[in-house]
């Protein structure tokens, strides 16, 4: 454990951009955990006397049409947005990687079934498929998570399958087999760590994509419902104010959304270096 930490510190020290993105990620996580407790105002409390006030020392990011403090709402929304992104990517990563590894290692009918499912998902424009899934399963946050996980699944399954397929005859796999390891054990202890570095880059990219997808769905009125603070829905609420010049209602949640995606995308290379077994020397 200590060694992994030391290695992580080394990787972060080597690349300032990665370190900055990890710092930003930590900020997002802190905001997600502490949420409403560190927000200066109640994110749901409306105050019509202060409606649509521009950014000021009292309200850093201004107030919306009901006079709610936008800064507080953005902080309160972090938990929901991060929660959706992390849990959907965890689901997609878990199911996709296991299915892909099994398909690539086993081959045969399992490979064909997994391949067919993945191809079918990929035959849809992904955001449109997510819309269809949420519309069919029911309009709530849980289904947003499932939909986002499903559209991200093919990337993991394909990558894991390709890697397992190449490595199933590799020397270290044969050695493990000779030592009497079970097939499941070989997949989990020999193949899985080897696909991790590749997966880490994908995780960081799909985290960004997941958060954009969830925000997009709530922008068109799926999943999260007002008055729940969520970045996508906040941008949607500010959309009508843009035309009359109240830019801050949509701008700040949009910027935070962008910063989150940007941060996720930059984290990829650092994460890969941390988990890569070949670099842990």
């Amino acid at each position, binding site marked *: 454990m200590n060694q992994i930490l030391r290695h992580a510190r080394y990787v972060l020290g080597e690349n300032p951009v990665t370190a900055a993105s990890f710092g930003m990620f930590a900020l997002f996580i802190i905001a997600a955990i502490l949420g409403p407790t560190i927000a200066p105002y109640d994110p749901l409390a409306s105050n019509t006397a202060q409606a649509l006030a521009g950014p000021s020392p009292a309200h850093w990011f201004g107030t919306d049409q009901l006079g709610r403090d936008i800064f507080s709402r953005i902080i309160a929304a972090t938990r929901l947005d991060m929660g959706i992104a992390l849990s959907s990517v965890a689901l997609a990563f878990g199911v996709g990687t296991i299915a892909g590894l099994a398909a690539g290692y086993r081959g045969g009918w399992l490979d064909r079934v997994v391949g067919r499912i993945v191809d079918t998902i990929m035959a849809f*424009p992904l*955001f*449109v498929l997510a819309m269809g899934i949420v519309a069919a399963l029911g309009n709530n946050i849980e289904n947003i998570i499932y939909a986002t996980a499903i559209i991200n699944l093919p990337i993991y399954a394909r990558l894991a399958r390709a890697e397992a397929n190449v490595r199933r005859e590799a020397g270290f796999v044969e050695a493990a087999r000779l030592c009497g390891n079970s097939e499941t054990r070989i997949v989990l202890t020999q193949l899985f760590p080897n696909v991790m570095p590749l997966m880490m880059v994908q995780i960081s990219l799909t985290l960004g994509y997941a958060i954009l997808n969830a925000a*997009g769905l709530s922008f068109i009125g799926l999943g999260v419902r007002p008055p729940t603070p969520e970045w996508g829905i906040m*941008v949607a609420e500010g959309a009508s104010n843009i035309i009359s010049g109240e830019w801050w209602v949509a701008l700040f949640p949009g910027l935070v959304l*962008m910063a989150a995606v940007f941060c996720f995308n930059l984290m990829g290379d650092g994460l890969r270096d941390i988990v890569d077994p070949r670099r842990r020397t």
Partner: protein
Amino acid sequence: MIVLRRLVSALPSVIGVIIVTFLLTRALPGDPAAYFAGPAATQQAIDEVRHQLGFDRSLPVQFVDYVKHLAQGDLGTSLSTGQPVIDELITRLPASAELTLLGLLLAVAVALPLGITAAMRPGSWVDHSCRIVATAGVSLPTFFTGLLLVYIFYYLMGWAPAPLGRLDVFYTAPPNWTGFYLIDSLIARDWETFTAALSQLALPAFTMALFSLAPLARVTRASMLAALGSEFIRTARASGLSRMRIVYVYAFRNAMLPVITTLGMVFSFLLGANVLVEKVFAWPGIGSYAIEALIASDYAPVQGFVLTMALLYVLLNLAIDLVYGLVDPRVRLEA
């Protein structure tokens, strides 16, 4: 022959798409018949609808029925408008297609030169701006870019018209030939309408372009770099061919292959982004049709929309495959 083979290879995707959309119709939470009967229906009306829609029969029978209806172009009827879904999709499709295609055209027109120039001068300011565009493009939510552009070009500058649909209310739509206002107004030689339609189209198309520019520029740059560093380019240089010929004939044609493959992903992005951009600009396309239906819990249009988009996407991928074969003679030889 190759075209035929490609068509056959697209069949599994089409079948998969039809099965998934069928399953989505059956997966409606609660009782689907109650949904299709509407919120005010009595138990008797619901039972009637259930029988009418065949929900009281076994799943395989229902599926055959569903495919039969599809073959006749029957996607059901919208609850809120009472119109057949297919008719509304067909009347609204040109609006979406015009927006998406112009967006893609803009993106290609900017991304290719940008990527090529960046690859020819690595480390220059063009290269850096290419990287910034590529990173910013994937991080920016489309709906946010759209709103930002509306604020800058409509509210602050006053250059763009209000983001409310395809044409300002003062203009009448050009006679319908293709459904594309730009082309129709050109056919009618109506310059005023052409300019009006173009000014409405400019911001949403630019929003779409910004979004799809990023992957295109990145792949163009990377594959141009790889092509320029390869042995046949060194040979071409050593043989004294002109720089233009080396870059645009030898390197460019080879570098195009990964770019064409990326177009598949770009189309997936574009068709999804289309929905969001249509909402921002009140664009009367199939995306906003689906959103209106979603809000009204009107499922037939949503399902019709998902199916249409998926079939369009399969067709686009087929087209990409064919273009790939045209550009790369090796693919033709193998086939």
